[in-house]
């Protein structure tokens, strides 16, 4: 897998159990931080009706969409429970407290 790591922001600038939005030309990307400081990134659009997932409540490694309460797994981008759908996720890594993202390698396609 080819990856070009792009620096995003310091880990500390993302609230725990919260998110930030990255604006790119193509679309918005939501970047999440869990309670135990893991970081995940995915397209900021719920597979259901494109709700902005970055605005949802983060719990465990799940985010609940603010529009209709779909629960999306942060690692896989897949809807949980009886709902079906998937959103793109992007690889991220943390080095020396800085978060990097790779946009060239899309892990899962919708």
């Amino acid at each position: 897998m080819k990856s070009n790591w792009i620096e995003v922001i310091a880990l500390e600038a993302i609230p725990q159990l919260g998110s930030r939005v990255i604006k790119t030309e193509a679309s918005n990307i939501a970047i999440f931080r869990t309670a135990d400081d893991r970081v995940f990134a995915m397209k900021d659009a719920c597979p259901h009706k494109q709700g902005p997932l970055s605005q949802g409540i983060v719990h465990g490694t799940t985010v609940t969409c603010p529009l209709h309460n779909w629960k999306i797994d942060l690692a896989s981008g897949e809807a949980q429970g009886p709902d079906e759908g998937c959103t793109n996720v992007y690889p991220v890594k943390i080095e020396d407290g800085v978060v990097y993202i790779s946009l060239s390698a899309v892990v899962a396609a919708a």
Partner: protein
Amino acid sequence: MKQRLVMVGNGMAGVRTLEELLKLAPEMYDVTVFGSEPYGNYNRIMLSPLLAKEKVLSEIMLNDLDWYQDNNIRLYAGRQVTQIDRVHKRVIADDGTEVEYDRLLIASGSDPFLIPVPGVDLPGVITFRDIADVNTMLDAARDYKHAVVIGGGLLGLEAANGLMKHGMKVTVVHLLDSLMERQLDKPASTLLKSHLEQSGMQFAMEAQTTAILGDERVQAVKFADGNEIPADLVVMAVGIRPSIALAQQAGIYCERGIVVNDTMQTFDPVVYAIGECVQHRSNCYGLVAPLFEQAKVCANHLANIGTSRYEGSITSTKLKVTGIDLFSAGDYNEGEGDEAMVLQDPASGTYKKIVIRDNKIKGTVLYGDTMDGSWYFSLMREGTSIADFRKTILFGQHDVGDAGHGDVARVMSLPDSVEICGCNGVCKGDIVAAISKQGLFTLEDVRAHTKASSSCGSCTGLVESILASTVGEGYSAAPSKQAMCACTEHSHDDVIHAIKEHQLKTMPDVRQFLEWKTPDGCASCRPALNYYLLTKWPGEYADDSQSRFINERAHGNIQKDGTYSVVPRMFGGLCTPSDLRAIADVCDKFEVPEMKVTGGQRIDLFGIKKEDLPAVWKDLSGAGFVSGHAYGKAMRTVKTCAGKNWCRFGTQDSTGLGVQLEELTWGSWMPHKFKLAVSGCPRNCAEATIKDFGVVCVDSGYELHVGGNGGIKVRVTDLLCKVATEAEVLEYSGAFIQKYREEAHYLERTAPWVERVGLSSIKAAVVDDVEQRKALYERFKYSQKFAQIDPWKARAEGEAAHEFMPLRIAG
């Protein structure tokens, strides 16, 4: 190697346990199931429709044979376990099959009871318990004429009804003088009997069967008084008993059923038991809802999670017998000191009875119209005082709009294309398909799979009716204790109580003390805990913005395109030309695509980008506006009419009082949104009587009204009291609000809260008890010191900037 789990019995409760277990720990066990019938798991409640040919076998299958294969479960269908060898931890079946276990689950169900009379073993004498019995009845209906059903309970009447449909002449024999005496009182039972007689069913009441006569096959039934009636088929439906013989023989302690503790464990710690064979805290259950609760608990312990307990169920019965809706719950036969209220309408074929003691419902029987059954049941379970609405209780829940009526017969006749849930666009056909394909049994399941009734909830009654008509008549909507969410077993009241009693001051403290199952909760419990802590410890607890729903985190209403709407506060709805000019300037500057006057007399600016919010607020704040909290579970608006300054009918200064009320209450967080209104005279132009707190001015003072709602279910307020001065209006409103803030469940509006706790208890604290009122008012004013810091101004000045500022990256 995997542990081995063996299940004896292949019925609904047992297989439900396996399904729950597979969800929790799919790889933990190597599972073997023994079932005495040659089928997968089917819905036993649906045997009557199967007999009546309303359903076919494939429609009542819950888990077909493929399901077992797909889940790697070894199923011995058609083999009966004859011995449990606890010493060697193995079971032995009638064909000699032996399987060893590490853990054993007994789900043997119940056995039909046979009256010990001569001739009971003759061909043509059967019970009504399984598919084989149904087949025997169908065969008999083809070849013979006369059927006798012994037992006038639900099962007996269903069998009789089914046999009649196949052209048999049926007599129901009952030992007592009234039918279904365990579900119905005497008048309801009499109504049912005459209805059934009209359809051609015959009855032999108070008849004791002494012998079944016949040579090759049954020919007649003989009674104690010497009478005989001809019979080619005898169906015994006199009751069921927990099937405990196998457990008893293995030395497992049994009484009426197999005795289990709150974790569904028998006296042998590796042996669990579940379902109709079980006796828990002296009770045996036969309805689906409690058995499925047991299944959940049992699976939790089999998966070694060990966090849940079954604490018993209060059950209600909602049935449909031969087309008649019946509902009963609790002690419906009044004893000494009880009162009974009865409403009977012979023309429409309805009968309602409520048994009351000390103004609390002890039991109820409904015949013909069961719409209010779940309401009466919840009043009974919560122990709500009905003193405030005794006069009208029999007429039903007055605030339920048409959409909430759960009329099973009407729902059944609707075409599949009818939209049931208007919020999510779910049709009847979608719901029925999901219920039968996914094997759904509870309202929560249906909500999760179809989204029906998961938004505003006004179609809940209809969805429950569809559920009842699709899964069968034994469906019972009886949850024992409603847990706050899937993260915990505790209810909202438990949490509120624990925070107070044990001085819990942070969310991790609450979750640890109450043994939460998830490390940081979920999107449903986190906002609730945050609210409870904020209300209990104002000025001390640090609000957690990540536990706020986005609208409250961003202090604006998220719209479906991800933009936000902004509503500046205009106290009492009053405004000046410069206010309007400032708003107009903001709209021009930020190119607001649409403006609207809201129902609460404020101005809404739509389509604002999130990153622009702080700048919008800076301009509004500079013009003197504060947040309108139109986005929050918070105090929203005080709506006012013109009042005596201008209106020729006005009796008091309604706008001035509205401004004072809004100045007192703005900024306060609430369990749900909270609206006020002040009308200047009884013409009530501000619609104060559908608000959470409404003031209607009269010449001699102010009427205070509470608990109104103009939303999904329109509810007119109750009159709290009348006061003489504006100062009193402020004090009473603050006290009422604080009581609501401290005691209501999160997301419970004042209307259902007032109904749940009763107006009398609110009056006692807010009106009658001066000291309590003053203390409530003081607590409210204290918490307002911290709540009335304008969140917009703070964010315009840079607070929580990360929330609003997007990141940009190269590439």
